[in-house]
Protein backbone atom coordinates (compact mmCIF):
# COMPACT_ATOMS: atom_id res chain seq x y z
CA UNK A 1 0.00 0.00 0.00
CA UNK A 2 1.34 3.25 -1.02
CA UNK A 3 0.61 6.19 1.14
CA UNK A 4 -0.46 9.29 -0.65
CA UNK A 5 -0.70 12.69 0.88
CA UNK A 6 -2.95 15.12 -0.83
CA UNK A 7 -2.18 18.78 -0.70
CA UNK A 8 -5.23 19.43 1.45
CA UNK A 9 -4.21 16.84 4.01
CA UNK A 10 -0.75 18.27 4.13
CA UNK A 11 -2.09 21.79 4.63
CA UNK A 12 -4.49 20.82 7.42
CA UNK A 13 -1.78 18.84 9.16
CA UNK A 14 0.56 21.78 9.07
CA UNK A 15 -2.20 24.09 10.24
CA UNK A 16 -2.91 21.67 13.07
CA UNK A 17 0.73 21.70 14.10
CA UNK A 18 0.87 25.46 14.06
CA UNK A 19 -2.29 25.60 16.11
CA UNK A 20 -0.91 23.21 18.69
CA UNK A 21 2.28 25.18 19.11
CA UNK A 22 0.24 28.33 19.42
CA UNK A 23 -1.98 26.76 22.04
CA UNK A 24 0.96 25.44 24.02
CA UNK A 25 2.41 28.93 23.96
CA UNK A 26 -0.76 30.42 25.39
CA UNK A 27 -1.03 27.78 28.12
CA UNK A 28 2.64 28.28 28.92
CA UNK A 29 2.14 32.02 29.14
CA UNK A 30 -0.76 31.78 31.59
CA UNK A 31 0.27 28.76 33.61
CA UNK A 32 4.05 29.03 33.28
CA UNK A 33 4.87 31.66 35.94
CA UNK A 34 2.82 29.95 38.60
CA UNK A 35 3.99 26.53 37.48
CA UNK A 36 7.62 27.54 37.93
CA UNK A 37 6.96 29.04 41.37
CA UNK A 38 4.94 26.00 42.42
CA UNK A 39 7.73 23.67 41.36
CA UNK A 40 10.52 25.73 42.92
CA UNK A 41 8.87 26.81 46.16
CA UNK A 42 6.45 23.99 46.87
CA UNK A 43 7.31 20.69 45.19
CA UNK A 44 11.08 21.02 45.36
CA UNK A 45 11.20 21.65 49.15
CA UNK A 46 8.93 18.67 49.74
CA UNK A 47 11.19 16.33 47.76
CA UNK A 48 14.35 17.93 49.07
CA UNK A 49 13.03 17.55 52.62
CA UNK A 50 12.98 13.79 52.22
CA UNK A 51 16.56 13.85 50.90
CA UNK A 52 17.64 16.13 53.75
CA UNK A 53 16.13 13.83 56.35
CA UNK A 54 18.33 11.02 54.99
CA UNK A 55 21.54 13.05 55.08
CA UNK A 56 23.84 14.49 57.68
CA UNK A 57 25.13 18.07 57.68
CA UNK A 58 28.64 18.84 58.84
CA UNK A 59 27.85 22.47 59.56
CA UNK A 60 30.42 23.94 57.17
CA UNK A 61 27.90 24.50 54.40
CA UNK A 62 24.19 24.45 53.77
CA UNK A 63 24.49 21.37 51.59
CA UNK A 64 24.14 17.82 52.90
CA UNK A 65 27.58 16.30 53.52
CA UNK A 66 26.79 12.60 53.70
CA UNK A 67 24.01 10.13 52.99
CA UNK A 68 23.17 8.38 56.25
CA UNK A 69 19.96 6.51 55.46
CA UNK A 70 17.42 6.49 58.27
CA UNK A 71 19.99 7.51 60.87
CA UNK A 72 18.28 10.82 61.62
CA UNK A 73 14.99 9.07 62.26
CA UNK A 74 16.49 6.36 64.46
CA UNK A 75 18.34 9.04 66.43
CA UNK A 76 15.02 10.82 66.97
CA UNK A 77 13.95 7.69 68.85
CA UNK A 78 17.20 6.54 70.43
CA UNK A 79 19.43 9.54 71.12
CA UNK A 80 18.56 10.29 74.77
CA UNK A 81 18.56 14.08 74.56
CA UNK A 82 17.08 14.40 71.08
CA UNK A 83 14.36 11.82 71.69
CA UNK A 84 13.43 13.26 75.08
CA UNK A 85 13.23 16.84 73.82
CA UNK A 86 11.35 16.12 70.63
CA UNK A 87 8.77 13.64 71.90
CA UNK A 88 8.18 15.71 75.00
CA UNK A 89 7.47 18.69 72.77
CA UNK A 90 5.10 16.62 70.63
CA UNK A 91 3.27 15.51 73.77
CA UNK A 92 3.13 19.08 75.07
CA UNK A 93 1.62 20.20 71.76
CA UNK A 94 -0.99 17.45 71.65
CA UNK A 95 -1.90 18.00 75.30
CA UNK A 96 -2.49 21.68 74.63
CA UNK A 97 -4.47 20.80 71.49
CA UNK A 98 -6.79 18.54 73.44
CA UNK A 99 -7.79 21.47 75.63
CA UNK A 100 -7.70 24.41 73.24
CA UNK A 101 -9.41 22.85 70.20
CA UNK A 102 -12.74 22.08 71.94
CA UNK A 103 -12.68 25.50 73.60
CA UNK A 104 -11.91 27.26 70.31
CA UNK A 105 -14.98 25.67 68.78
CA UNK A 106 -17.49 25.63 71.67
CA UNK A 107 -16.99 29.24 72.80
CA UNK A 108 -17.36 30.66 69.26
CA UNK A 109 -20.35 28.36 68.75
CA UNK A 110 -22.03 29.82 71.82
CA UNK A 111 -21.28 33.36 70.71
CA UNK A 112 -22.43 32.63 67.16
CA UNK A 113 -25.73 31.31 68.52
CA UNK A 114 -26.20 34.57 70.41
CA UNK A 115 -25.40 36.52 67.23
CA UNK A 116 -27.92 34.44 65.27
CA UNK A 117 -30.65 35.75 67.59
CA UNK A 118 -29.90 39.11 65.98
CA UNK A 119 -29.97 41.37 69.05
CA UNK A 120 -29.57 45.10 68.36
CA UNK A 121 -26.03 45.93 67.19
CA UNK A 122 -25.11 42.32 66.41
CA UNK A 123 -23.03 43.32 63.39
CA UNK A 124 -20.94 45.62 65.55
CA UNK A 125 -20.43 42.89 68.16
CA UNK A 126 -19.42 40.49 65.41
CA UNK A 127 -16.67 42.84 64.20
CA UNK A 128 -15.49 43.46 67.77
CA UNK A 129 -15.10 39.75 68.50
CA UNK A 130 -13.19 39.17 65.27
CA UNK A 131 -10.99 42.27 65.65
CA UNK A 132 -8.12 41.05 67.91
CA UNK A 133 -7.24 38.22 65.52
CA UNK A 134 -6.27 40.49 62.65
CA UNK A 135 -3.24 42.05 64.35
CA UNK A 136 0.34 40.71 64.41
CA UNK A 137 0.75 38.16 67.19
CA UNK A 138 3.81 40.06 68.34
CA UNK A 139 1.75 43.22 68.88
CA UNK A 140 -1.18 41.64 70.70
CA UNK A 141 1.20 39.39 72.63
CA UNK A 142 3.29 42.35 73.70
CA UNK A 143 0.20 44.09 75.05
CA UNK A 144 -0.76 40.96 77.03
CA UNK A 145 2.79 40.71 78.40
CA UNK A 146 2.60 44.26 79.71
CA UNK A 147 -0.96 44.00 80.95
CA UNK A 148 -0.27 40.82 82.93
CA UNK A 149 3.17 41.96 84.05
CA UNK A 150 4.14 40.56 87.44
CA UNK A 151 5.20 43.75 89.17
CA UNK A 152 3.31 46.62 87.57
CA UNK A 153 0.77 44.99 85.32
CA UNK A 154 -2.79 46.25 85.25
CA UNK A 155 -4.37 42.85 85.99
CA UNK A 156 -2.35 42.13 89.13
CA UNK A 157 -2.91 45.64 90.44
CA UNK A 158 -6.58 45.82 89.55
CA UNK A 159 -7.50 42.48 91.13
CA UNK A 160 -5.00 43.05 93.89
CA UNK A 161 -3.19 39.74 93.39
CA UNK A 162 0.44 39.03 92.73
CA UNK A 163 0.63 36.18 90.30
CA UNK A 164 3.71 35.75 88.14
CA UNK A 165 1.60 34.91 85.07
CA UNK A 166 4.51 34.16 82.74
CA UNK A 167 6.91 32.89 85.39
CA UNK A 168 5.39 29.49 86.15
CA UNK A 169 4.59 26.66 83.79
CA UNK A 170 0.91 26.34 84.66
CA UNK A 171 -0.01 30.01 84.57
CA UNK A 172 2.11 30.50 81.46
CA UNK A 173 0.12 27.80 79.66
CA UNK A 174 -3.07 29.41 80.92
CA UNK A 175 -1.92 32.67 79.37
CA UNK A 176 -1.08 30.91 76.09
CA UNK A 177 -4.58 29.46 76.08
CA UNK A 178 -6.10 32.85 76.82
CA UNK A 179 -4.02 34.39 74.04
CA UNK A 180 -5.10 31.67 71.59
CA UNK A 181 -8.76 32.24 72.44
CA UNK A 182 -8.51 36.02 72.40
CA UNK A 183 -6.75 36.23 69.04
CA UNK A 184 -7.57 32.87 67.50
CA UNK A 185 -11.26 32.16 67.88
CA UNK A 186 -12.48 34.99 65.63
CA UNK A 187 -12.17 32.93 62.47
CA UNK A 188 -14.18 30.00 63.82
CA UNK A 189 -16.71 32.46 65.18
CA UNK A 190 -17.28 34.07 61.77
CA UNK A 191 -17.47 30.70 60.00
CA UNK A 192 -20.05 29.43 62.50
CA UNK A 193 -22.04 32.69 62.27
CA UNK A 194 -22.26 32.20 58.51
CA UNK A 195 -23.31 28.59 58.98
CA UNK A 196 -26.09 29.54 61.40
CA UNK A 197 -27.30 32.24 59.04
CA UNK A 198 -27.99 29.62 56.39
CA UNK A 199 -30.00 27.22 58.53
CA UNK A 200 -33.39 26.63 56.93
CA UNK A 201 -35.79 28.72 59.04
CA UNK A 202 -38.88 26.81 57.91
CA UNK A 203 -37.61 23.77 59.79
CA UNK A 204 -37.82 25.74 63.02
CA UNK A 205 -41.39 26.76 62.29
CA UNK A 206 -42.34 23.18 61.49
CA UNK A 207 -40.73 22.04 64.72
CA UNK A 208 -42.50 24.75 66.70
CA UNK A 209 -45.84 23.63 65.33
CA UNK A 210 -45.01 20.16 66.58
CA UNK A 211 -44.26 21.60 69.98
CA UNK A 212 -40.51 21.07 70.15
CA UNK A 213 -38.56 22.92 72.77
CA UNK A 214 -35.40 24.93 72.12
CA UNK A 215 -32.97 22.19 73.15
CA UNK A 216 -34.55 19.69 70.79
CA UNK A 217 -34.40 22.22 67.99
CA UNK A 218 -30.71 22.86 68.66
CA UNK A 219 -29.67 19.23 68.62
CA UNK A 220 -31.91 18.06 65.79
CA UNK A 221 -32.00 21.04 63.44
CA UNK A 222 -29.20 23.50 64.13
CA UNK A 223 -26.32 21.14 64.81
CA UNK A 224 -26.88 18.85 61.80
CA UNK A 225 -27.28 21.91 59.58
CA UNK A 226 -23.95 23.49 60.57
CA UNK A 227 -22.01 20.22 60.49
CA UNK A 228 -19.90 21.27 57.48
CA UNK A 229 -18.82 24.46 59.26
CA UNK A 230 -18.03 22.50 62.41
CA UNK A 231 -15.81 20.20 60.31
CA UNK A 232 -13.91 23.10 58.81
CA UNK A 233 -13.40 24.58 62.28
CA UNK A 234 -12.28 21.26 63.76
CA UNK A 235 -9.69 20.57 61.06
CA UNK A 236 -8.25 24.04 60.64
CA UNK A 237 -8.12 24.65 64.39
CA UNK A 238 -6.51 21.30 65.09
CA UNK A 239 -3.87 21.70 62.39
CA UNK A 240 -3.31 25.32 63.34
CA UNK A 241 -2.54 24.50 66.97
CA UNK A 242 -0.43 21.46 66.10
CA UNK A 243 1.80 24.14 64.56
CA UNK A 244 1.69 26.29 67.69
CA UNK A 245 4.70 28.57 67.76
CA UNK A 246 4.24 32.34 67.63
CA UNK A 247 2.18 32.53 70.81
CA UNK A 248 4.86 30.64 72.75
CA UNK A 249 7.68 32.67 71.24
CA UNK A 250 6.22 35.96 72.36
CA UNK A 251 4.71 35.02 75.73
CA UNK A 252 6.82 32.18 77.12
CA UNK A 253 10.39 33.09 76.18
CA UNK A 254 11.16 34.04 79.79
CA UNK A 255 9.37 31.21 81.55
CA UNK A 256 12.00 29.37 83.62
CA UNK A 257 11.18 25.77 82.75
CA UNK A 258 11.62 26.01 78.98
CA UNK A 259 11.35 22.26 78.35
CA UNK A 260 7.70 22.46 79.44
CA UNK A 261 7.04 25.46 77.22
CA UNK A 262 8.34 24.22 73.87
CA UNK A 263 6.00 22.94 71.21
CA UNK A 264 7.13 20.61 68.44
CA UNK A 265 7.45 23.46 65.94
CA UNK A 266 9.46 25.36 68.55
CA UNK A 267 11.98 22.49 68.65
CA UNK A 268 12.24 22.49 64.86
CA UNK A 269 12.78 26.27 64.79
CA UNK A 270 15.44 25.90 67.49
CA UNK A 271 17.17 23.25 65.44
CA UNK A 272 17.20 25.53 62.39
CA UNK A 273 18.24 28.73 64.17
CA UNK A 274 20.71 27.27 66.65
CA UNK A 275 24.39 26.75 66.09
CA UNK A 276 24.12 22.97 65.88
CA UNK A 277 23.12 23.14 62.18
CA UNK A 278 20.97 20.07 62.68
CA UNK A 279 19.20 20.52 59.36
CA UNK A 280 18.89 16.77 58.83
CA UNK A 281 17.25 16.35 62.21
CA UNK A 282 14.99 19.33 61.59
CA UNK A 283 13.80 17.80 58.31
CA UNK A 284 13.25 14.44 60.00
CA UNK A 285 11.33 16.11 62.85
CA UNK A 286 9.21 17.98 60.31
CA UNK A 287 8.33 14.75 58.53
CA UNK A 288 7.51 13.02 61.84
CA UNK A 289 5.29 15.89 62.97
CA UNK A 290 3.64 16.07 59.54
CA UNK A 291 2.87 12.36 59.66
CA UNK A 292 1.42 12.69 63.17
CA UNK A 293 -0.81 15.53 61.97
CA UNK A 294 -1.96 13.49 58.97
CA UNK A 295 -2.69 10.42 61.10
CA UNK A 296 -4.73 12.35 63.67
CA UNK A 297 -6.57 14.23 60.92
CA UNK A 298 -7.46 10.97 59.17
CA UNK A 299 -8.69 9.52 62.47
CA UNK A 300 -10.87 12.60 62.96
CA UNK A 301 -12.13 12.25 59.41
CA UNK A 302 -13.07 8.59 59.89
CA UNK A 303 -14.70 9.18 63.27
CA UNK A 304 -16.80 12.12 62.09
CA UNK A 305 -17.49 10.70 58.64
CA UNK A 306 -20.98 10.70 57.19
CA UNK A 307 -21.86 7.05 56.74
CA UNK A 308 -24.70 7.73 54.37
CA UNK A 309 -24.69 10.56 51.90
CA UNK A 310 -27.55 12.64 50.65
CA UNK A 311 -30.65 13.37 52.65
CA UNK A 312 -29.50 11.76 55.86
CA UNK A 313 -30.27 14.77 58.03
CA UNK A 314 -33.74 15.23 56.68
CA UNK A 315 -34.49 11.53 57.05
CA UNK A 316 -33.24 11.54 60.59
CA UNK A 317 -35.22 14.68 61.35
CA UNK A 318 -38.40 13.24 59.88
CA UNK A 319 -37.92 9.98 61.77
CA UNK A 320 -37.35 11.89 64.96
CA UNK A 321 -40.40 14.03 64.29
CA UNK A 322 -42.56 11.00 63.67
CA UNK A 323 -41.43 9.35 66.85
CA UNK A 324 -42.85 12.14 68.95
Amino acid at each position, binding site marked *: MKQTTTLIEYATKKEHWKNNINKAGIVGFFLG*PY*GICFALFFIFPLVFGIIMSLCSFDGSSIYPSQFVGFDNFTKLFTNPILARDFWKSVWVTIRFDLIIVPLSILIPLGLALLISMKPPGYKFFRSCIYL*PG*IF*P*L*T*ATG*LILLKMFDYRNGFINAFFNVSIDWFGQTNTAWFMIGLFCLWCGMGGNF*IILCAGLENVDKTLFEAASVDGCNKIDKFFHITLPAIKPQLFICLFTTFIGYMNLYGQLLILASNTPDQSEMKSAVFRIQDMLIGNSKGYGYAAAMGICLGLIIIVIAVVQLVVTKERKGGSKHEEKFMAWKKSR
Partner: protein
Amino acid sequence: MKKNSWLGKNLGKLIAFIVLLLVSLLMLTPIVWGILGSFRHYRDFQSNSSQFFPSWDAFTFDGYQELFSKTTYVEGQGNNWFPIWNWLFNSLIVALGGTLLYLIIAAFAAYAFVFLDFKWRDKIFYFLIGTMTIPGIISTAPQLINMSMMGFYKSLLGLIAPTLGGVYGVFLIRQFFVNIPSDLIENARMDGASNLKIFFKIVLPLGKSALFVQGLFGFMGAWNDVQWAQLIIGNAPRSTWTLAYGLKVISDNSEAYESITLALASAVISMIPILIVYLVAQSKIIEGVANTGIKR
Protein backbone atom coordinates in the same frame (compact mmCIF):
# COMPACT_ATOMS: atom_id res chain seq x y z
CA MET B 1 -49.95 41.07 80.90
CA LYS B 2 -49.13 42.57 77.54
CA LYS B 3 -45.91 44.06 78.83
CA ASN B 4 -44.92 40.72 80.26
CA SER B 5 -45.40 39.00 76.95
CA TRP B 6 -43.22 41.62 75.23
CA LEU B 7 -40.49 40.91 77.72
CA GLY B 8 -41.05 37.17 77.38
CA LYS B 9 -40.67 37.42 73.62
CA ASN B 10 -37.55 39.51 73.77
CA LEU B 11 -35.89 38.15 76.88
CA GLY B 12 -33.61 35.93 74.79
CA LYS B 13 -32.54 38.88 72.67
CA LEU B 14 -31.91 40.98 75.76
CA ILE B 15 -29.70 38.32 77.33
CA ALA B 16 -27.87 37.85 74.03
CA PHE B 17 -27.32 41.60 73.82
CA ILE B 18 -25.89 41.82 77.34
CA VAL B 19 -23.60 38.78 76.95
CA LEU B 20 -22.32 39.95 73.56
CA LEU B 21 -21.72 43.44 74.92
CA LEU B 22 -19.66 42.04 77.80
CA VAL B 23 -17.68 39.71 75.53
CA SER B 24 -17.00 42.52 73.05
CA LEU B 25 -15.77 44.76 75.84
CA LEU B 26 -13.54 41.96 77.09
CA MET B 27 -12.07 41.42 73.62
CA LEU B 28 -11.36 45.12 73.16
CA THR B 29 -10.03 45.77 76.67
CA PRO B 30 -6.38 44.79 76.08
CA ILE B 31 -6.25 46.67 72.76
CA VAL B 32 -7.67 49.86 74.26
CA TRP B 33 -5.36 49.48 77.26
CA GLY B 34 -2.42 49.10 74.89
CA ILE B 35 -3.33 52.13 72.82
CA LEU B 36 -3.86 54.29 75.92
CA GLY B 37 -0.64 52.91 77.37
CA SER B 38 1.35 54.05 74.37
CA PHE B 39 0.55 57.64 75.43
CA ARG B 40 1.20 57.03 79.12
CA HIS B 41 4.31 58.06 80.98
CA TYR B 42 6.18 55.07 82.33
CA ARG B 43 6.06 56.36 85.90
CA ASP B 44 2.28 56.30 85.72
CA PHE B 45 2.47 52.53 85.04
CA GLN B 46 4.22 52.13 88.38
CA SER B 47 2.34 54.56 90.60
CA ASN B 48 -1.06 54.15 89.02
CA SER B 49 -1.04 50.61 87.67
CA SER B 50 -4.48 49.61 88.95
CA GLN B 51 -6.11 52.34 86.84
CA PHE B 52 -7.29 51.36 83.38
CA PHE B 53 -7.18 54.97 82.20
CA PRO B 54 -3.95 56.92 82.60
CA SER B 55 -4.09 60.01 84.78
CA TRP B 56 -4.33 63.29 82.85
CA ASP B 57 -0.87 64.59 83.65
CA ALA B 58 0.74 61.33 82.54
CA PHE B 59 -0.14 61.96 78.91
CA THR B 60 2.97 61.91 76.73
CA PHE B 61 4.24 61.38 73.20
CA ASP B 62 7.57 60.16 74.57
CA GLY B 63 7.03 56.58 73.41
CA TYR B 64 6.53 57.57 69.80
CA GLN B 65 9.21 60.25 69.93
CA GLU B 66 11.74 57.81 71.31
CA LEU B 67 10.73 55.11 68.85
CA PHE B 68 11.25 57.42 65.88
CA SER B 69 14.44 58.98 67.22
CA LYS B 70 16.37 55.83 68.13
CA THR B 71 16.59 54.73 64.53
CA THR B 72 20.34 54.35 64.23
CA TYR B 73 23.01 52.49 66.11
CA VAL B 74 24.73 54.59 68.76
CA GLU B 75 27.99 53.48 70.34
CA GLY B 76 27.46 52.42 73.94
CA GLN B 77 23.67 52.25 73.71
CA GLY B 78 23.69 48.52 73.08
CA ASN B 79 20.73 47.05 71.26
CA ASN B 80 18.44 49.89 72.15
CA TRP B 81 17.88 51.12 68.58
CA PHE B 82 15.03 50.46 66.21
CA PRO B 83 15.15 51.38 62.50
CA ILE B 84 11.39 51.65 62.48
CA TRP B 85 11.15 53.30 59.04
CA ASN B 86 13.10 50.42 57.50
CA TRP B 87 10.86 47.93 59.26
CA LEU B 88 7.71 49.64 58.05
CA PHE B 89 9.10 49.83 54.53
CA ASN B 90 10.20 46.18 54.55
CA SER B 91 6.85 44.99 55.88
CA LEU B 92 5.08 46.97 53.17
CA ILE B 93 7.34 45.56 50.43
CA VAL B 94 6.81 42.00 51.61
CA ALA B 95 3.09 42.30 52.30
CA LEU B 96 2.09 44.49 49.36
CA GLY B 97 4.67 43.42 46.77
CA GLY B 98 4.45 39.73 47.56
CA THR B 99 0.67 39.77 47.54
CA LEU B 100 0.39 41.64 44.23
CA LEU B 101 2.93 39.36 42.57
CA TYR B 102 1.11 36.29 43.79
CA LEU B 103 -2.28 37.65 42.70
CA ILE B 104 -1.01 38.16 39.14
CA ILE B 105 0.48 34.70 38.67
CA ALA B 106 -2.34 32.97 40.57
CA ALA B 107 -5.03 34.72 38.51
CA PHE B 108 -3.22 33.76 35.28
CA ALA B 109 -3.02 30.15 36.46
CA ALA B 110 -6.68 30.14 37.49
CA TYR B 111 -7.60 31.49 34.04
CA ALA B 112 -5.67 28.64 32.40
CA PHE B 113 -7.42 26.07 34.58
CA VAL B 114 -10.88 27.37 33.72
CA PHE B 115 -10.83 28.83 30.21
CA LEU B 116 -7.94 27.16 28.39
CA ASP B 117 -8.13 23.66 27.08
CA PHE B 118 -5.09 21.47 27.45
CA LYS B 119 -4.15 17.91 28.16
CA TRP B 120 -4.54 16.73 31.79
CA ARG B 121 -5.92 20.14 32.79
CA ASP B 122 -8.28 18.82 35.44
CA LYS B 123 -5.84 16.13 36.57
CA ILE B 124 -3.19 18.77 37.23
CA PHE B 125 -5.72 20.84 39.13
CA TYR B 126 -6.77 17.91 41.31
CA PHE B 127 -3.11 17.24 42.00
CA LEU B 128 -2.77 20.86 43.16
CA ILE B 129 -5.76 20.47 45.49
CA GLY B 130 -4.31 17.21 46.77
CA THR B 131 -1.07 18.91 47.80
CA MET B 132 -3.05 21.18 50.13
CA THR B 133 -3.45 18.28 52.52
CA ILE B 134 0.31 18.03 53.08
CA PRO B 135 1.22 19.73 56.39
CA GLY B 136 3.41 22.75 55.75
CA ILE B 137 5.79 21.94 58.59
CA ILE B 138 7.34 19.18 56.45
CA SER B 139 8.82 21.74 54.09
CA THR B 140 9.98 24.30 56.64
CA ALA B 141 13.55 23.05 56.96
CA PRO B 142 14.10 22.27 53.25
CA GLN B 143 12.53 25.59 52.26
CA LEU B 144 15.12 27.39 54.38
CA ILE B 145 17.96 25.56 52.60
CA ASN B 146 16.19 26.17 49.30
CA MET B 147 16.17 29.91 50.00
CA SER B 148 19.87 29.76 50.94
CA MET B 149 20.71 27.99 47.70
CA MET B 150 18.91 30.66 45.72
CA GLY B 151 20.66 33.40 47.62
CA PHE B 152 17.44 34.64 49.24
CA TYR B 153 18.61 33.97 52.81
CA LYS B 154 18.71 37.14 54.95
CA SER B 155 16.81 39.00 52.26
CA LEU B 156 13.22 40.08 51.81
CA LEU B 157 13.01 37.89 48.70
CA GLY B 158 13.22 34.92 51.01
CA LEU B 159 9.99 36.09 52.65
CA ILE B 160 8.18 36.71 49.37
CA ALA B 161 9.27 33.70 47.30
CA PRO B 162 7.66 30.87 49.35
CA THR B 163 4.26 32.57 49.23
CA LEU B 164 4.34 32.54 45.41
CA GLY B 165 4.10 28.74 45.31
CA GLY B 166 0.93 28.74 47.43
CA VAL B 167 -1.96 26.63 46.18
CA TYR B 168 -4.88 28.07 48.10
CA GLY B 169 -5.09 31.35 46.18
CA VAL B 170 -5.20 29.59 42.81
CA PHE B 171 -7.91 27.31 44.14
CA LEU B 172 -9.95 30.19 45.54
CA ILE B 173 -9.68 32.36 42.43
CA ARG B 174 -10.51 29.41 40.18
CA GLN B 175 -13.69 28.75 42.16
CA PHE B 176 -14.80 32.32 41.40
CA PHE B 177 -13.81 32.12 37.72
CA VAL B 178 -15.80 28.91 37.25
CA ASN B 179 -18.98 30.87 37.93
CA ILE B 180 -18.38 33.24 35.03
CA PRO B 181 -20.80 32.25 32.25
CA SER B 182 -18.85 30.50 29.50
CA ASP B 183 -21.09 32.08 26.82
CA LEU B 184 -19.41 35.39 27.51
CA ILE B 185 -16.01 33.88 26.81
CA GLU B 186 -17.20 31.98 23.73
CA ASN B 187 -18.75 35.10 22.25
CA ALA B 188 -15.59 37.06 22.83
CA ARG B 189 -13.55 34.27 21.18
CA MET B 190 -15.91 34.36 18.18
CA ASP B 191 -15.29 38.05 17.90
CA GLY B 192 -11.59 37.24 17.70
CA ALA B 193 -10.54 38.52 21.10
CA SER B 194 -7.20 37.22 22.31
CA ASN B 195 -6.85 35.38 25.62
CA LEU B 196 -5.08 38.33 27.18
CA LYS B 197 -7.90 40.62 26.15
CA ILE B 198 -10.51 38.21 27.49
CA PHE B 199 -8.57 37.97 30.74
CA PHE B 200 -8.28 41.70 31.30
CA LYS B 201 -11.60 42.85 29.82
CA ILE B 202 -14.01 40.14 30.97
CA VAL B 203 -12.60 37.69 33.51
CA LEU B 204 -10.73 40.11 35.73
CA PRO B 205 -13.59 42.62 36.19
CA LEU B 206 -16.04 39.79 36.95
CA GLY B 207 -13.73 37.91 39.30
CA LYS B 208 -12.14 40.83 41.07
CA SER B 209 -13.87 40.14 44.37
CA ALA B 210 -11.98 36.82 44.56
CA LEU B 211 -8.70 38.62 43.95
CA PHE B 212 -9.66 41.18 46.57
CA VAL B 213 -10.38 38.57 49.24
CA GLN B 214 -7.21 36.62 48.46
CA GLY B 215 -5.26 39.88 48.43
CA LEU B 216 -6.58 40.93 51.83
CA PHE B 217 -5.63 37.66 53.48
CA GLY B 218 -2.30 37.54 51.69
CA PHE B 219 -1.49 41.04 52.92
CA MET B 220 -2.54 40.32 56.49
CA GLY B 221 -0.70 37.01 56.59
CA ALA B 222 2.53 38.51 55.29
CA TRP B 223 2.31 41.58 57.52
CA ASN B 224 1.77 39.45 60.64
CA ASP B 225 4.25 36.65 59.95
CA VAL B 226 6.88 36.05 62.62
CA GLN B 227 7.84 32.39 62.35
CA TRP B 228 9.21 32.37 58.82
CA ALA B 229 10.62 35.87 59.25
CA GLN B 230 12.62 34.66 62.24
CA LEU B 231 14.24 31.95 60.12
CA ILE B 232 15.01 34.08 57.09
CA ILE B 233 15.88 37.51 58.49
CA GLY B 234 16.42 36.80 62.19
CA ASN B 235 20.19 36.72 61.70
CA ALA B 236 20.24 39.57 59.19
CA PRO B 237 21.19 43.17 60.08
CA ARG B 238 18.41 45.06 61.86
CA SER B 239 17.62 47.18 58.84
CA THR B 240 16.34 44.12 56.92
CA TRP B 241 13.85 43.05 59.58
CA THR B 242 10.12 43.35 59.22
CA LEU B 243 7.99 45.22 61.73
CA ALA B 244 6.31 42.12 63.17
CA TYR B 245 9.69 40.54 63.83
CA GLY B 246 11.21 43.76 65.14
CA LEU B 247 8.40 43.95 67.69
CA LYS B 248 9.50 40.63 69.15
CA VAL B 249 12.94 42.08 69.83
CA ILE B 250 11.49 45.31 71.24
CA SER B 251 9.35 43.19 73.52
CA ASP B 252 12.41 41.19 74.67
CA ASN B 253 14.30 44.42 75.35
CA SER B 254 11.49 46.11 77.22
CA GLU B 255 11.96 44.48 80.60
CA ALA B 256 13.08 47.83 81.92
CA TYR B 257 10.18 50.08 82.87
CA GLU B 258 11.42 53.08 81.00
CA SER B 259 10.68 51.37 77.71
CA ILE B 260 7.14 50.12 78.32
CA THR B 261 5.64 53.19 76.64
CA LEU B 262 7.96 52.74 73.67
CA ALA B 263 7.09 49.05 73.39
CA LEU B 264 3.35 49.77 73.40
CA ALA B 265 3.87 52.57 70.88
CA SER B 266 5.62 50.18 68.51
CA ALA B 267 2.80 47.68 68.89
CA VAL B 268 0.26 50.37 68.04
CA ILE B 269 2.28 51.42 64.97
CA SER B 270 2.26 47.84 63.70
CA MET B 271 -1.48 47.58 64.23
CA ILE B 272 -2.45 50.76 62.38
CA PRO B 273 -2.07 49.53 58.76
CA ILE B 274 -3.97 46.34 59.52
CA LEU B 275 -6.66 48.33 61.34
CA ILE B 276 -7.05 50.62 58.31
CA VAL B 277 -7.39 47.60 56.02
CA TYR B 278 -9.96 46.13 58.41
CA LEU B 279 -12.03 49.30 58.69
CA VAL B 280 -12.07 49.83 54.92
CA ALA B 281 -12.76 46.24 53.91
CA GLN B 282 -14.46 44.87 57.01
CA SER B 283 -17.49 43.38 55.32
CA LYS B 284 -15.32 41.81 52.60
CA ILE B 285 -13.03 40.27 55.20
CA ILE B 286 -15.87 38.83 57.26
CA GLU B 287 -17.57 37.57 54.10
CA GLY B 288 -14.26 36.11 52.96
CA VAL B 289 -13.68 34.21 56.19
CA ALA B 290 -17.24 32.94 56.13
CA ASN B 291 -17.08 31.73 52.52
CA THR B 292 -13.55 30.42 52.28
CA GLY B 293 -12.54 29.32 55.75
CA ILE B 294 -9.23 31.21 55.72
CA LYS B 295 -8.84 32.62 59.17
CA ARG B 296 -6.00 35.04 59.23
